[in-house]
């Protein structure tokens, strides 16, 4: 399966991925509706994108009481709009914090890999997000640990 590989050391925090994602997912250029989220570290000097890994368990999918989340043709877990009732069970079932809820449509939504052509990867100017064959991984754990160590050390001092 092709997965979204995230390379935080290449991320510049330009947020083009969020714009592209929100347009693809909701038809509007609103970063607040993007399902890929860029987090700042060390006082906005470094950044890391974060999104759904399409995990094997598919916590969102198994939690859905009406079978509204299925696996699409490219292997991504995808919300079927006409089946989703907006109960939010998927948002507490997902232990990655990568389920979203659109208050305008009252539906859950998430990364569906844009059915095989992820807009975030296409929009990223530095290849910090790539769509490639491989396994999902904890792409930004090491980066986040190193970029937060100074903050923690200062707090403990």
């Amino acid at each position: 399966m092709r997965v979204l590989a995230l390379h935080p050391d290449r991320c510049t925090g330009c947020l083009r991925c969020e714009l592209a994602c929100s347009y693809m997912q909701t038809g509007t250029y609103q970063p607040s509706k993007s399902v890929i989220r860029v987090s700042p570290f060390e006082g906005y000097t470094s950044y890391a994108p974060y999104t759904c890994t399409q995990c094997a368990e598919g916590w969102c999918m198994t939690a859905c009481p009406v079978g509204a989340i299925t696996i699409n043709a490219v292997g991504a877990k995808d919300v079927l709009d006409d089946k989703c009732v907006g109960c939010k069970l998927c948002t507490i079932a997902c232990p990655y914090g990568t389920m979203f809820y659109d208050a305008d449509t009252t539906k859950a939504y998430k990364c569906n890999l844009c059915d095989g052509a992820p807009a975030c990867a296409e929009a990223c100017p530095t290849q910090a997000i790539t769509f490639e064959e491989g396994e999902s991984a904890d792409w930004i754990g090491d980066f986040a640990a190193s970029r937060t160590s100074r903050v923690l050390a200062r707090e403990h001092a």
Partner: protein
Amino acid sequence: MATRHLIIGGGTAGLNAIRTIREEDSTSEITLVSRERPYSRMVLPYYLGATIAESHVYTATPASLHAWGVKTMLGRRAASLDTAEHRLTLDDGATVAYDDCLIATGSRAARPPVPGAEGPGVHSFWTLDEARAVIADVQPGTRVVMVGAGFISFTILNTILSRGAALTIVEVAPRILPRMVDEACATIVARWLEDHGVTIRAGATLTKIEEWKGKRKLTFKKGAPIFADVVIMATGIRTNLEWVDGSGIEVSAESGGGILVDDHLRSSVKTVYAAGDVARGPNLLTGTLEVHAIEPTAQEHGRVVGANMAGRDRAYRGSLIMNIVEVCHLDIASFGQWDDAKADVFTATRADRSQYRKLLFRGGKLTGAMICGPAEAIWTTNDVGMLKGLVYSGADLSAWKTHLKGNPFDVKPAYLATHTAGKLLPQTILGRASHSPQLPQSVMVQ
């Protein structure tokens, strides 16, 4: 001869068991006994709110059950179980023989022993039939009183309002949502609801409901009576287990009851499993046997039982108590041991934004959490998931405890830097990737 699986109860646990058996094998015999046609109680509030059609609530149709090779006996109740003879007797006298069986008969709405609680114009909201009755009675301008300010009444609060009714909630405990949130959170939620036109009366003990000039008059131990067109009793649930008496299956005598199950969700009779609201299974965090009458537990129980019935020998780590509900665009969620007096507790309130966080630690592990905030704030939704991941994975947050003490809202960096996603990725309930909810054609039984 093919193994004969008997599933008693067509709710979330039963349907998940059936689907999982069929994901594993297509040759065994499956019989479903269910008093009702399978549907999801979880989505009844949306049916009540007319945002979905009745057809949307069903989780299986006669056609899909047939395609899955399930023999159905619907509209009938289980009456008695002979575990020595491996035989179930139904209320009409029919019998079903089995090799293994699942008890997933769920629970029903319970009403307090108050005069008039069973009278006309007094509803419960638990089954599809009860939902239909509420729909028929609640119209624009209807004065509705909900007795009980727990999770169930909160799931239908929005739709009662959207139907144009005037709503009063009364609760016997001194505050709303007593089993889901703490006092600080309840205060924020109560203020929010009152700002949205809901009248709340907590600490009110109902003593009588009577007819009064075509309306319902509710009398309380203290304070003025309340008049209503419609009363909805959301005063708890009771497990449907009376029929198991005399079967030799061990049922807990403790509060909440439930069939005692092991880590494979087998009862004291090893060919009989229990799942969902009727099962007293392990708590993920403490290992204590508890009834968690919530949808995610029923779903996980059902899948684990299905795998075991299909011969997968799958142990279950336990269930995490969790709830989420949105009322008037305010999200409220809690996880795990949020009421633990021995935990280190960090809280933060942004009262002007109706936001509240509570984190509970045992040592370096997050063992409980509470979250409240406006639904349009995307961080609320994302943090709900990350808090679940931190509690579920048992991530070591020792290095982050000081930071989170001062910044209970700053969950994401702690989540990412402790490699929580990496710990969770290999973990699956069934020891394999989950399947799409629709069974692929290849495993359909003809």
